[in-house]
């Protein structure tokens, strides 16, 4: 049987992997954007990217068997599955006709997200785009985030318009 430990390169043993490299790159890009143009504008750029990726992921899941988008739980399942696929550990804590609430203790970006709240716009836009494409409307509010120094991330995904609620709105 192949010895998996000895088959690792020295670089990998030092923590250099393909995933880690690209995650580092994303983190550095976000940091550079925040530094150069400010947090608000950087979040806007990240949002553009998240929006486009959300559209692509919507199309991807629409073509996969086993991922309907009929009920709020269906939407939640897609979001959780998506995060699992990229090494995040989101949990669907609540699912009603009005909203979904997700929490996690582990960000796909890892430690690189700390101090880079613009990256939260990825989750905001990807979740919002997937849900809005499926149901026509979504509203996303990240009430807690590891990036902002909290112990966990808490994402509220509203499925019905509510003028009193916080968050960014998304439309089909």
């Amino acid at each position, binding site marked *: 049987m192949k010895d998996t430990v000895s088959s690792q390169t020295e670089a990998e043993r030092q923590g250099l992997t393909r995933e880690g490299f690209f995650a580092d790159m994303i983190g550095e890009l976000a940091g550079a954007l925040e*530094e*150069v*143009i*400010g947090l*608000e*504008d950087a*979040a*806007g*750029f990240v*949002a*553009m990217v998240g*929006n486009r990726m959300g559209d692509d992921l919507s199309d991807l899941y629409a073509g996969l068997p086993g991922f309907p988008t009929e009920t709020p739980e269906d939407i939640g399942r897609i979001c959780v599955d998506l995060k699992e696929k990229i090494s995040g550990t989101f949990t669907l804590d609540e699912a009603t006709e009005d909203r979904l609430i997700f929490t996690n203790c582990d960000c796909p970006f890892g430690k690189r997200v700390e101090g880079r709240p613009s990256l939260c*716009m990825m989750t*905001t*836009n990807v979740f*919002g*785009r997937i849900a*809005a494409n499926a149901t026509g409307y979504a509203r996303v509010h990240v009430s807690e985030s590891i990036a902002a120094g909290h112990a966990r991330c808490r994402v509220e995904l509203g499925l019905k318009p509510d003028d009193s609620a916080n968050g*960014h*709105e*998304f*439309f*089909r």
Partner: protein
Amino acid sequence: MLLSEQGDVVYANERAQALLIAGPEGTDGGLIPAIIPQLGPVLRSSVTIPLRVTLKTGSVWFKAWRVAGGSLGVDGAMAMLFGDSSGVLRSRFMVLRNEVANIEHLRARDLNVAQQLRTEAQHLRRLVTTDQLTSLTTGQELRRSVTKALQSGTKTGALLFADLDGFKEINDTHGHSAGDAVLEQVGQRLLEHKRSDDVSARVGGDEFAFWIADVDAAIATRIAHRLRRQIERPVSWRTSDGQRTELVVGASFGIACYPQDGADYAALADVADARMYTNKRDRKALHSHSARR
């Protein structure tokens, strides 16, 4: 300004109005037609996103987001375009700052390279102008130095030529390593007894030359005697079998004074050389006469 889903201007503040007539003949210069294709992503989300419009006159930046049309009695949604160039200015400033830092880094590197080149050039110049065995100046460099001194207005000076007596015998008796030891130690002594403006050179196998500035014939003669004493001091040398011995050479001198004996280096050198050979002949004759007695 506020635009409808179709791109109609619902509201424009004073600055936006100025933009809308900034084009040729009071038109918008293509601003609205350039914005319309980008309205889709804006209208699909309330997230503020950057929007750049490129016109012939340059780029215009906005922050754009969706606004509910009902607030102004408009059907459907609207796009709010907020012209804020602060982010662009910040990014241009950062780019400039990075460019300045890069230029400073390159400049420091170039200065470092320039210093290294200067050091290397100085080293090469020393190699070219210095005799490696004795550390004295070369004959070519002596000619250059004397010519420069004469052209700079020196009033007086003396060119001394010196030839070692008995050097060939040392080479024949003890070998070239002994001869080299003599030359090396003689060279060292000549350097130690040189004034800062003087030039001491090795111009041949066992031939030396000196340029002494601002002296007359009497002083030049005294200097020649002093240099002779230094050359004729015994040189300590260890033979191949470990024996220590003392090697002794003499020195014949020829002196040419400026301006009496010549107006340039060539003329002075001819005179000094001739007088050196006269001195060598006279010393040999004197030595032979002494030996017979």
